[in-house]
């Protein structure tokens, strides 16, 4: 059976989309031995940086790997295939590396990285497309068709594909969102993010997935245990998004920031070492999402680590 596509998306920026992407990739690979492919469609390239480091992102780009080369494929009308553009090793956890070294691969993370240059490519593409009287929606549809075919080459290779989506509705972002089976929505427990999440929910519902509540997994990130944050979190769960499944609250913590700052492209850390004080939160995130995923897909994976 092919990989499920889950998008980590919200129209509000700064809600922890890339952090959630990396935590889920690590958590699903580490605890359930899943083969995870992350696809970074955000030109900010944050999840790419978190997994590969800045040098790694640049090296991938220069080696002809990544989402910007997928865009180039589309612009040059080349056959759609994302498989040769993947960086196969985006593993940062020592346990995964060791099991691979011993020919006992149990969980893996690969990436189709982004690169800041993709911003300019998108501009060039849009300029060319619109100069021929094409519309943004037509461009989004054409990109969706290209990506769909390109990702079909990845589906047999992985258990899950996690798309880190940009916080806007460019044709590129819309193409990614349209190919999604499961929507993961990180949000922060405050007024502006609550409103931003509502905008996202309304747009997706009206334009892409009328059944969004059934396919939506919400994660409250950067949670600070204050009266105000608890109050807003409670309102999100019981009132505004009471028809969704929620993951655990991920705390605002220096451990999270440290975990997302890889020392070097050849640097590895144990799960405990990487996540420190938030390792329990990452485990709970993986467990809750796994339950949601298993219910959605009917597929089951064995838990291989505690």
């Amino acid at each position, binding site marked *: 059976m092919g990989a499920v596509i889950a998008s980590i998306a919200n129209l509000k920026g700064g809600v922890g989309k890339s952090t959630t992407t990396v935590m889920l990739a690590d958590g699903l690979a580490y605890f359930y031995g899943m083969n995870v492919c992350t696809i970074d469609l955000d030109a900010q390239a944050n999840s790419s940086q978190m997994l590969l480091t800045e040098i790694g992102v640049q090296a991938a780009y220069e080696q002809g790997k990544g989402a910007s080369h997928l865009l180039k494929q589309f612009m040059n009308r080349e056959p759609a295939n994302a498989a040769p553009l993947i960086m196969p090793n985006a593993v940062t956890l020592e346990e995964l590396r060791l099991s691979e070294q011993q020919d006992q691969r149990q969980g893996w993370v690969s990436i189709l990285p982004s690169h800041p240059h993709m911003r300019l490519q998108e501009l060039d593409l849009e300029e060319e497309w619109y100069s021929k009287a094409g519309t943004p929606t037509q461009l989004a549809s054409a990109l969706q068709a290209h990506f769909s075919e390109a990702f079909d080459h990845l589906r047999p290779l992985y258990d899950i594909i996690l798309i880190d989506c940009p916080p806007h509705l460019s044709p590129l972002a819309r193409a990614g969102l349209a190919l999604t089976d499961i929507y993961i929505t990180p949000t922060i427990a405050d007024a502006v993010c609550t409103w931003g999440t509502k905008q996202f929910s309304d747009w997706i519902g009206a334009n892409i997935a009328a059944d969004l509540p059934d396919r939506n997994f919400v994660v409250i990130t950067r949670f600070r245990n204050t009266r105000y944050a608890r109050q807003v979190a409670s309102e999100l769960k*019981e009132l505004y*998004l009471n028809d969704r499944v929620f993951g655990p609250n991920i705390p605002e913590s220096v451990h999270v920031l440290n975990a997302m700052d890889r020392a070097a492209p050849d640097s590895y850390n144990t799960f405990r070492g990487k996540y420190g004080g938030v390792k329990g939160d990452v485990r709970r995130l993986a467990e809750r999402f796994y339950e949601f995923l298993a219910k959605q897909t009917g597929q089951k994976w064995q838990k291989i680590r505690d």
Partner: protein
Amino acid sequence: MAEDSRLDPAAYLDRLFDVIREEARQNPKFADRLVKAMGGQVVFEDEAKSAVANPYLLAGNSTKAHFYSVFAPMKTNELKKILRDHNLATPLDLRGKSASQLLDMLYERARLKITERKSSYF
């Protein structure tokens, strides 16, 4: 010789639950969070009610009559505190208002916020 501090699992859990039980008795907000986390419905009485009653949840999930039945018995100061604590009014907004005016303000502003923040599609 030092006392053996090891506990059997049941004694360990007893100690843990004793602390949780005691905290829940003394702290209605904690009790409310605890019960919500377990998916339960618990009725809070008297002064505990003002500590845990959330105008957004009540305005969104119950009738106007129920909303008023919860908040109407509260004193002016309690209503002012709830309005402030839930970012529904500034001290300036509250100045010179009667309990009845505060009650109406609480309901109308909570409803307005819900309309702004709840999905219009779902």
